[in-house]
């Protein structure tokens, strides 16, 4: 019998038996953690709206998920969620692009001042950098800035406390302030503000820019917290809309491909960076009825649960540690994503 370099490779190396013929999420070999997460690990979560599922699963598993702006006693759960409490390490909202994360960290360090940080609509004012956390806006621009200052202090505490940053990369497309380069999580005019092509410009970040942004973030945070590790994942949630000339399907694939390449390059560059394949697990063709809900955008809750179960099992955390107060999964739990509002602009 002839010898092939594929001879003797494990089952996971072959599509047949590795993907086809096994359950869509019955893939224990798909992820080998580069470093361990234990119930004592202090985890900082951030990223696009899929990151909300990641953080929630970690909380349910009893990990020490950092929350420096928690909902305090008396705050009912629906209100807490709607106003961005308990979602991420601080109340900074969804971070869709690595550039957005970079400028947030720079702002926290006093190295950056965002342009046009307050957007107005119908006499109310929104924080342009986290418009989703105050769904009804605030009464004045001064209030927005006072709240923002509080958030930056909380962010600094979270960063100092973190051992592992779990960051979900979501988008490459962003709207930028033409004169200063400030990027925003939503397009002007979506939640608040107004779109003026002389003021704002569309950007679709590429691999090199994202790598540069990530490296900048990593270096800044390493100054504060030298032992910090990173766990990256790519959101499988497709774009709600694209501002490129491409079809939204190809724009989505381009965006995710770029982010996926970035993750691989970053993982290869440092032992402190790991990657978990959320994207691949959702996009796998092995899901018998598809991984998405009817809108073909939201990942079905049972798929999210399966993926996060796989992640936790790889860390030996599938079962709740004794004595830890774990949260009960909420079957109605849906991530809050501002970008879905773009759907309202369909023809």
């Amino acid at each position, binding site marked *: 019998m002839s010898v092939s370099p594929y001879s003797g490779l494990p089952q996971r190396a072959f599509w047949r038996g590795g993907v086809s013929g096994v359950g869509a999420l019955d893939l224990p070999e798909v992820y080998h953690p580069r470093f361990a997460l234990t119930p004592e690990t202090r985890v900082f979560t951030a990223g696009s709206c899929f990151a909300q599922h990641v953080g929630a699963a970690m909380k349910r598993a009893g990990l020490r998920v950092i929350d420096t702006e928690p909902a*305090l*006693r*008396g705050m009912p759960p629906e209100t807490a969620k709607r*106003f961005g409490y308990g979602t991420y390490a601080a109340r900074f909202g969804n971070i869709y692009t690595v550039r957005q994360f970079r400028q947030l960290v720079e702002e926290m360090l006093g190295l950056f001042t965002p342009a046009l940080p307050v957007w107005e609509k119908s006499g109310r004012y929104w924080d342009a950098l986290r418009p989703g956390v105050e769904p009804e806006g605030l009464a004045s621009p001064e209030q927005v800035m006072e709240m923002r200052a509080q958030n930056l202090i909380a962010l600094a505490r979270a960063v100092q406390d973190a051992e592992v940053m779990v960051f979900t990369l979501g988008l490459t497309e962003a709207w930028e302030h033409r004169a200063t380069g400030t990027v925003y999580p939503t397009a002007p005019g979506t939640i608040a503000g107004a779109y003026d092509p002389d003021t704002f410009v569309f950007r679709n970040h590429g691999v090199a820019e994202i790598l540069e942004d990530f490296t900048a973030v990593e270096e800044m945070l390493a100054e504060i917290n030298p032992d910090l590790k990173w766990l990256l994942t790519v959101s499988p949630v497709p774009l709600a809309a694209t501002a490129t000339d491409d079809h939204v399907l190809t724009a989505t694939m381009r965006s995710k491909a770029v982010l996926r390449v970035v993750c691989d390059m970053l993982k290869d560059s440092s032992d402190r960076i790991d990657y978990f394949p959320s994207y691949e697990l959702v996009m796998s063709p092995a899901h018998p009825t598809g991984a998405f809900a009817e809108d073909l955008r939201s990942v079905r809750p049972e798929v999210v649960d399966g993926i996060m179960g796989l992640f936790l099992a790889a860390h030996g955390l599938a079962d709740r540690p004794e004595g830890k107060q774990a949260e009960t999964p909420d079957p109605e739990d849906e991530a809050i994503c501002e970008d879905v509002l773009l759907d309202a602009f369909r023809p």
Partner: protein
Amino acid sequence: MTRRIAVVGTSNIGALKYAAGSIALDHPGLSVTFWGLPGGKFAECATDPGGVFQPLPGDTETRKLAQRINGADHLDLTRFDATLVIADTMGLPSVLFVAGNYDVIDWPPRRGKPLLSEPGFRAAMDEAIAARADDLARQFRGVAPLYLARAPYPTTVVTRRGKLRLEPFASVAGHPEAARIELLYTEALSRALAERKMAFVAQPQDTIAAPFLTRPEFGKDAMDFRAAGRVLDDHRHMNAAFGASLFRAFALALGPDMTGAAPTPARQE
């Protein structure tokens, strides 16, 4: 024509029950029946399709308790012209905890607490109230007209620590925005109840010492609703003078068509 009134509720019906004599004098056109159970047991009761308010089917222990306290293990609410429910705290402790834990950014005082927007505060308040209002709407489905009074504020005697500890009411006493919060809460509760076809009967102003706190004399000699003569003095349950005052407020809400006469002036207790 005598109108029949049902007063049902938690242990807080004691204040009205022991005011039955003065209520009868103040409102001769009303015949009042009282029916109550301790809070947890009361919360399990519901109105059946025939309009009978009663404990859970098969809960013989609670039925026995209801029989012992009220002389009947159920109350047919279809026999009454109006029903007044003396409920629990209707989400107020949650509201007060939020008020105590945050500085609402729209209001001037800064106490060094985390900031919360007023829409956030209102949403928290609405959610806390809605949960209880929904429960009551389920409990009293089909009963009309339905009036609701919340449990009385505790008296000014309650403290943050010790035997009469009652957070968060004690701590809200010094809140610089307590009056505003009380107004917002009262409006929100009234609105939530109206949306569920219930009318809110607010705690009478003459009983209130400060926002969310009752004048201490109304907590003195309050008796256990289950047994006359057993004095509580816990400053969470109120006495007959309070009950008479609350019933006057209820009678005003009923209106002269129901009470048969203009409300009489407050009697000297």
